[in-house]
């Protein structure tokens, strides 16, 4: 089968998504099916100079990093490279939260830093003509399996169902809470969590944003092994438009009541359920999982 030609273009970025992609466990198989016409780290057929000066045949444009009109890449405005290849490729994929929503570089000195189509939740309307071609894979960094699986879906011409931010629903309809190994602690309001330990829920005190962050981290494990919440670190909400937040290890509460609640759950419903479950003590959940 013909290899799918991919351009990995890095704009305002820490290269975190590039590194995350290198952790994809079946990268050899991937490189049998795809070839990079340019990638910042992996050997590729063309130099960045050639990419900028010529129209090289390409199927998918991957954008890593935030977008700003005045950001210069290899001597030309980064956005000009996007525009040039947007005409050539079949699909554009924004890789990571910066390319999708602007991410941490919104704090930089560049003007109007955003993702390709969104500045946080707001649609920018700057590149409307590219909207239909775009798929977003948010995350800081991107989940390598979610990225690769999406690229295979594009290669096979599958019709991807996307959410309002152009993210494949296959991966972003779920919350990080889904599949979290601490769900019982959440259900029964056992919140005595200590960082790095297996017991307790991190939603109440340690800022876990799993119940209102969309993604598949606890369904498709990282490095096929683990996730933040399973390992004892709160979900930081890295796939969401508002990422990064400040005070990420603290739960914002008003008079002891979390300000942000599980997505779609009303305050009244949450408090009613919490009031009932908090009344009980489940001995099993109060103890260490392993006594020795």
């Amino acid at each position, binding site marked *: 089968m013909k290899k799918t030609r991919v351009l990995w273009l890095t704009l305002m970025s820490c290269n975190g998504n590039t590194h995350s992609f290198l952790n994809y466990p079946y990268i050899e198989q991937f490189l049998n099916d795809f070839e990079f016409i340019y990638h910042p780290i992996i050997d590729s057929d063309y130099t960045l100079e050639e990419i900028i000066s010529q129209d090289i045949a390409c199927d998918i444009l991957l954008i890593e990093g935030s977008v700003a009109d005045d950001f210069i890449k290899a001597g030309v405005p980064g956005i000009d490279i996007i525009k040039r290849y947007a005409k050539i490729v079949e699909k554009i994929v924004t890789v990571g939260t910066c390319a999708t929503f602007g991410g941490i570089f919104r704090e930089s000195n560049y003007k109007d830093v955003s993702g390709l189509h969104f500045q946080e939740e707001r649609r920018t309307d700057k590149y409307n003509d590219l909207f239909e071609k775009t798929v977003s894979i948010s995350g800081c960094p991107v989940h390598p399996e979610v990225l690769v699986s999406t690229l295979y879906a594009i290669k096979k011409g599958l019709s991807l169902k996307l959410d309002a931010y152009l993210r494949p629903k296959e991966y972003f309809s779920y919350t990080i809470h889904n599949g979290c190994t601490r769900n019982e602690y959440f259900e029964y309001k056992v919140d005595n969590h200590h960082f790095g330990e297996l017991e307790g829920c991190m939603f109440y005190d340690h800022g876990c944003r799993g119940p209102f962050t969309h993604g598949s981290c606890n369904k498709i494990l990282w490095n096929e092994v683990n996730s933040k919440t399973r390992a004892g670190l709160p979900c930081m909400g890295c796939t969401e438009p508002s990422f990064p937040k400040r005070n990420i290890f603290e739960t914002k*509460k*008003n*008079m*002891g*009541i979390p*300000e942000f609640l599980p997505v779609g759950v009303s*305050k*009244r419903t949450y*408090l*009613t359920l919490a*009031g*009932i479950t*908090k*009344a*009980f003590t489940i001995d099993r959940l109060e103890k260490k999982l392993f006594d020795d």
Partner: protein
Amino acid sequence: MNDKKEQKKEQIIVASLHLFATKGFYNTTIPDIALSLKMSVGNMYNYFKSKDLLAKEIIKFVSSYFGRKIKAINEENISTKEKTRKIVEVYFQTALLKPEMIDYFLRIYLSTREVFKEGCEGMICVNDFVTEIMIYFEEGVKCGDLRDQDFFSAFGLFMGYMGGMVFLKGENVLPKELDQYIDDVSSNIYKALSA
């Protein structure tokens, strides 16, 4: 359960609420309640299997009554100060017009804990009411009117103060009617809780 049976259950709750609050829990028997409703004792047991179960249903009934009232206040587009006044008003007006409601809470629910130990753990049986108070606090803090603090320190201040006033009224100690204390009590509560 059909509507007719639900209505009858509510009648039993209202009648027994009155009897429990005036005569006390242990001095009121199922035959007393049946007699007050002109029902047979056997038929009473078709609705409630025991006096303890009835007692738990009553506190849920009282909690739900206050829950609905405070929910309506929470949903009004008014300041936290005004909400505070309205909640105090509802509480004191209920103490005046339906004294059995608050008497039941203070003199049966809080004083006969052995009856409520199983089935009413924690705040389960008063959840409707507590949930609305939580929402009142949370929204008050969120809009900057109330000071952020531990829920129970605020809850204790609010409920302890209002309950204390109604208790004093019940003991015939207060020189004035309860409704004449609404302004001062609500103003004191708001000052104590405000940011």
